[in-house]
C-alpha cells in the first residue's frame, strides 16, 4: 500500500515536473523543476533499493549538473526575463510528432510482457559494486573505470580551453563602441 502510494507520488512528480520544465517560461524555474524531476528519480532508485545509484543521481545531477545550470542561468539570464518559445505552429508540430512517437513506443512497451526474474533478488551492496569496479575479468569494469578518467580529463581540458579563451575580436569591438 505504501509502496504503491509512494510510487504513484513519485511518478506523478516526475511527469508533472518534467512537463513544467519544458513549458515554463522562466528559465530558473525550469531548472528548479528539473531538480525536482531528478530528485524524484533518485527517489525511484531508492525505492528499487539501489541506494548507491540514488546517491549518485543526487550527487551528480542534483548537486552537480543542476547547480552548474543554475550558475550559468545566473550568469546569462535576467530575473524577469522570459524564455522565448517557438512559434505556435512549430510547437504544435513538435507536440504532434512527440505524441506520435510516444504512442508508438508506449504501445510497443505495453504489448510486450516482460517476465521479471522474481526468483533471484539478491540485494547488492556497495562492496559488490566496488569489486566489480576493480576487477578486470569478464564481470569486471576496470577498463571502463580508466576510460571514464580519460573522458573526464577530456571534458576538463575542453571546458578549460573553451572557458579560458580570450575575448574575441567582436567582444572587444562591443566594448569600445557601445
Amino acid at each position, binding site marked *: 500500500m505504501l*509502496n*504503491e502510494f509512494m*510510487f504513484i507520488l513519485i*511518478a506523478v512528480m516526475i*511527469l508533472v515536473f*518534467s*512537463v513544467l*520544465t*519544458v513549458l515554463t517560461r522562466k*528559465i530558473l524555474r525550469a*531548472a528548479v523543476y*528539473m531538480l525536482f*524531476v531528478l530528485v524524484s*528519480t533518485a527517489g*525511484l532508485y531508492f525505492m*528499487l533499493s*539501489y541506494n548507491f*545509484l540514488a546517491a*549518485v543521481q543526487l550527487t*551528480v*545531477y542534483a548537486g*552537480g*549538473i543542476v547547480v*552548474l*545550470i543554475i550558475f*550559468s542561468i545566473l*550568469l546569462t*539570464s535576467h530575473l524577469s526575463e522570459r*524564455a*522565448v*518559445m*517557438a512559434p505556435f505552429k*512549430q*510547437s504544435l508540430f*513538435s507536440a504532434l510528432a*512527440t*505524441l506520435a*512517437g*510516444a504512442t508508438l513506443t*508506449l504501445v510497443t*512497451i*505495453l504489448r510486450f510482457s*516482460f517476465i*521479471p*526474474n522474481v526468483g*533471484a*533478488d539478491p540485494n*547488492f551492496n556497495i562492496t559488490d*559494486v566496488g569489486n*566489480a569496479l576493480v576487477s578486470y575479468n569478464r564481470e569486471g569494469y576496470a577498463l571502463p573505470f580508466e576510460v*571514464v578518467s580519460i573522458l*573526464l580529463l*577530456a571534458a*576538463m581540458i*575542453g*571546458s578549460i580551453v*573553451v*572557458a579560458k*579563451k580570450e575575448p574575441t575580436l*567582436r567582444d572587444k569591438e562591443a566594448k569600445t563602441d557601445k
Partner: protein
Amino acid sequence: MIQNIPLSYFLVISTAMFFIGIYGFLTRRNLITMLMSVELILNSVNINFVAFNKYLFPQHLQGHFFMLIVIAVAASEAAVAIAIIINIYRNFKSIDVENVDEMKF
C-alpha cells in the same frame, strides 16, 4: 523490485520523460533550456537501465555500470556545453539559438 509495481510502469514513466525531453528540445529557443531537455532525455534512459537491471537481471551489475557511465557522459557533456554556452553569451550577449546563427567566424 517493488511489489505490485510491474516493470512496464517504469518504462511508461521513462518513455513519457523521454518524449517530454524531445518536445522541449524541439520547442525551446534557449540553449540552456535545450541542455536541460537533453538532461531529461538522458535521465529517462537511466531509469530504463536501472529498471531493467532490477527486474530482469537482478544478479548482474550491467545496469549499474551503464548508468554510471551515462552519468559521467552527461556530466562531461553538461560541463563542456555550459562552457560553450557561456562563451557564446560573452560573445553575442544572447543565448538564443536564432541569434547564434551568425556564428560564422
